[in-house]
């Protein structure tokens, strides 16, 4: 039985090796001289901008997500409504639409206004708007995982509601949500490629746009592959880290 499966596999490999046009593949996808020509710009411009968009978007999303999570759990009804509406709307929209809205819609609606940081500000805002909705739900689950006795103990020591949240509840919640937030960071790292729809200048190009531009300039697919490798360089270790953190947490809780 197993032998049969291996037989199919070997046949497929033989077929691919025999039929593939290795020269054409090599020239178009793994062109060494084209690849070498991408450096160092693909790192110093492409990867650098991808990291900047991701980190600033993540920071905005984290702050927004925490605020939304606290509003979602607030006893003030309008806060809860706002948070629930925000989360539903932004989780229900394609991220690309948000990027187009921030990059094209807002300048059309308010001519002359510019977000601080220009394109960097726009990319961070778009990524932040999207990720805040996802992170809010993650952080809310983390806050709810902290036993109510923790807040009670803090309040009984004379801490205000805000102080108890900040010093006792939120730090414990963040320990729970670090693995899922790391996964969110991986998602954002990939979504930062949508910045190319904002309309970026040469020096503001991130990996995907950089790869696409050079591929069409040189009529060769290699830049897209190298850009892809650059993503994997970051996303695979980060994903591995998230799984490690998660496993450690499970062990810690027993």
């Amino acid at each position, binding site marked *: 039985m197993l032998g049969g499966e291996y037989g199919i596999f070997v046949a497929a490999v033989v077929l691919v090796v025999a039929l593939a046009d290795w020269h054409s593949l090599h020239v178009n996808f793994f062109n060494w001289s084209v690849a070498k020509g991408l450096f160092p710009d693909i790192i110093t411009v492409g990867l650098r901008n991808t990291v900047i968009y991701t980190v600033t978007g993540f920071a905005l999303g984290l702050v927004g997500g925490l605020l939304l999570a606290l509003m979602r759990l607030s006893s003030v009804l309008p806060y809860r409504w706002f948070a629930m509406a925000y989360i539903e709307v932004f989780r229900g929209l394609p991220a690309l639409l948000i990027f187009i809205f921030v990059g094209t819609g807002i300048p059309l609606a308010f001519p002359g206004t510019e977000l601080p940081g220009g394109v960097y500000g726009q990319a961070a805002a778009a990524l932040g708007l999207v990720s805040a909705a996802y992170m809010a739900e993650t952080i809310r689950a983390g806050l709810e995982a902290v036993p109510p006795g923790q807040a009670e103990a803090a309040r009984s*020591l004379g801490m205000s509601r805000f102080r108890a949240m900040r010093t*006792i509840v939120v730090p414990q919640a963040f*320990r729970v949500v670090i693995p899922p937030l790391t996964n969110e960071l991986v998602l954002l790292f990939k979504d930062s490629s949508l910045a190319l729809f904002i309309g970026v200048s040469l020096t503001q190009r991130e990996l995907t746009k950089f790869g696409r531009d050079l591929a069409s300039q040189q009529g060769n697919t290699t830049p897209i592959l190298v850009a892809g490798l650059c993503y994997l360089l970051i996303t695979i270790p980060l994903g591995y880290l998230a799984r490690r953190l998660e496993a450690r947490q499970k062990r810690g809780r027993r």
Partner: protein
Amino acid sequence: MSAIEIRGLRKTFGTLEVLSGIDLDVESGEVVCVIGPSGSGKSTLLRCVNLLEEPSGGTVTVDGVELTDPDVDIDAARRRIGMVFQSFNLFPHLTVLGNVTVAQRKVLKRDKAEAERVARANLERVGLADKVDSYPEKLSGGQQQRVAIARALAMDPRVMLFDEPTSALDPELVGDVLGVMRGLADEGMTMVVVTHEMSFAREVADRVVFMDGGVVVEQGAPDRVIANPEHERTRTFLARVLDPAAARVGEVDG
């Protein structure tokens, strides 16, 4: 002036009335043990004394401050009221020293050296000076509860509330916690203790209060209430607590 004055205290959860008009005074330096069957409202009474539960009616005055006054600074008032919980509620993300210093630092604004000095003195008092750097999860239940007592004492409370402090402990660990509480009573601390430990109530309390069905059924010197109760309900309860195996099926009221 009494340390604690409770007048006409009522508490309802939805349609369920848990406290139906409690009047109780605790004098400064007095140790009052509150006993009664589960569901009698004794824990709710205790939680109303520092407003962890909002009373539905009546007044609670602690150390001359009426907590039920809507304009009261509840955080300031709670600083003067130490609370010890059945489930300890230590902060798991902080060391023992962190647990005992955090509210001193953030609420009383003591500097680090002063807060640590007070913490060490109080941990010494509960016999855990050697555990300052441990995390709560490394401690036994009895040790955790003693840290919780030290944490409350570090705020220099005027009264201490104990909500079934030994109910979650293995039997062999109960003695250490009761020993610490006995020491506090001897030092003249004003204490209200909700407990099932009748020997502790008999030996340490100045007064025993028996509650059932949301009212104080009877109260008085421990010898009188425990050894010679006036009311049938008290007799039934005590018979069951003092000799659980002796209860007959007909007596069990469910």
